[in-house]
């Protein structure tokens, strides 16, 4: 998949719609529900803690809701949300005095000012979801089991080892194989960010 195929710009038409979103509670609810998970995953890359990410996204929406009457959004709502969440994440890292290698990498490659491709284009996101699911399904069985426990149940290696009755070393090995394979299968998607 080429990056340019998915370059997608949001027209100014969004603005009229954006204002409606902010004045109507039902519309705001759907805005929240459309973006919440996506923005949480986006924030998670910065802070590497899903709970904190959700907190940041939720606070962003709270801010948006509270300022809805005075807010002037000069870009699209989409761009605005991602920008706000990113700023909050960077502030959080600064406050916590955490240096993120991920942020360093983005800064080095001038990617901090872009909105991720997956955020701009719904097709890219669908593509991403499918490819990730396929890549996980293609993992060797034990590897997949360990990886899923680590990623989706958020268990530590030690806890996985206890549950599966194997040594922590074995869990580490499975995790290494799993993530390296996923990296290999998915890396063409991430260059586009």
């Amino acid at each position, binding site marked *: 998949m080429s990056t340019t195929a998915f370059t997608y710009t949001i027209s100014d038409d969004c603005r009229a719609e954006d204002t409606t979103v902010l004045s109507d*509670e039902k519309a705001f*609810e759907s805005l*929240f*529900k459309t973006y*919440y*998970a996506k923005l*949480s*995953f986006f924030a*998670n*890359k910065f802070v*590497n*803690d*899903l*709970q*904190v990410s*959700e*907190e940041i996204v*939720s606070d962003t*929406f*709270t801010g948006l*809701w*509270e300022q809805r009457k005075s807010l002037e959004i000069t870009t699209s709502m989409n761009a605005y949300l991602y920008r706000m969440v990113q700023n909050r994440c960077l502030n*959080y890292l600064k*406050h*916590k005095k955490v*240096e993120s*290698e*991920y942020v*360093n*990498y983005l800064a080095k490659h001038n990617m901090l000012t872009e909105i991720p491709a997956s955020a701009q284009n719904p097709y890219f*996101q669908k593509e*991403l*979801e499918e490819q*990730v*699911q396929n*890549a*996980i399904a293609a993992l060797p069985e034990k590897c997949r089991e360990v*990886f899923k426990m*680590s*990623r*989706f149940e958020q268990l*530590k*290696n030690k806890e996985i080892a*206890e*549950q599966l009755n194997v040594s922590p070393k074995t869990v*580490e*090995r499975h*995790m*290494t194989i799993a*993530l*390296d394979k*996923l*990296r290999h299968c*998915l*890396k063409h*998607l*991430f260059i586009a960010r």
Partner: protein
Amino acid sequence: MREDIKISLINYITGQADETESAEVREWIRSKPENEQYYFELYEAWHGSLYAERDIVDVESAYALFRAKASDRTPVYRRLRFLPKLAAAALVVFACAIAVYDFISTKPPETLIELSIPKGLTKKLVLPDGSTVWINAGSQITYSRDFGKTDRDVFLVGEAYFYIAKTDTEIPFLVKTDKFTIRDVGTVFNVKAYPEDEVFETTVVEGKVSVEGKLTQGSDLESKVFLDANQVLKINTDENKPTGNKAGIRAAEPVKVMQISDSQIEKYNGWKDDFLIFEGETFEEICKILERRYDVEIVFGNQELKAYQYTGTFKNIENISTVFEVIKENTPIKYNTDGNRITILKANRPININLKDDDDLRKNYY
């Protein structure tokens, strides 16, 4: 590439590397652009994989929480319209709100941020000063929009675990409950102050706190008690029963400080990691905790049952019936479930406590 650095990279990404390993990883990433590229791809793969299970983020309950938090003082009946599921919780909040207003009445209410956690949920919150608060089910936290500028006061109804950020500020961190104020001196601590409970409880995990208020029952004198790490303060707040709980099993002094060991800490703060730990608590006390944790109503079909004591540890048990199945194994009870209402009855079999020892339970439910 060295296999051991791959393992370290993954430990680092998944938050399982210690200081030494983290420093090693950071050094490795910095040393070569190829290394940085490899790390970036690995990190993206770890994060991208979440897209395979988007349900890991619970949008519905996030929205419910958002509404509760962003509520710009809309009357409760309006909130109910949007959140039929939270109706019951909102009513509890409404009842508590009167109490909250009482002791924050000196400040204009619109400058406050209120976060109510319905029963059945817990929530982690990062305050503007970087301090982290885990809020237990059926609890409410209120703080000023200017938190950190002029004060660091948190009003608590219910239970929360505080991890206070180390900052340069001179402003004290205060947790205010309806009866007592906990003053932090660089700490990690748990506060349990549910209005329906007869006991106020504070557990210090790290550092030191002081608890201030009318500590002596029947006296209007303000006093103060200091607590160090591994100490628990219990204050009996039920004015009608100054000498023990209803069952009268353990004679509770009005104010008691206990020294606990590191391994006992989890009994007090385990809830934030989805642990439920009981060590000889009575059924009456346990059921109060279960009611909040699982958003159910528990009724005793037999008053005698309230005094039964139980010891056991549960982790990550999603379903309350699983908890009762385990309890049933070594206590003579049976139970009926009717929607959200659970009735506990005496079982017609001999009391056979300690049929299974605690270790067996741990093995089964960890």
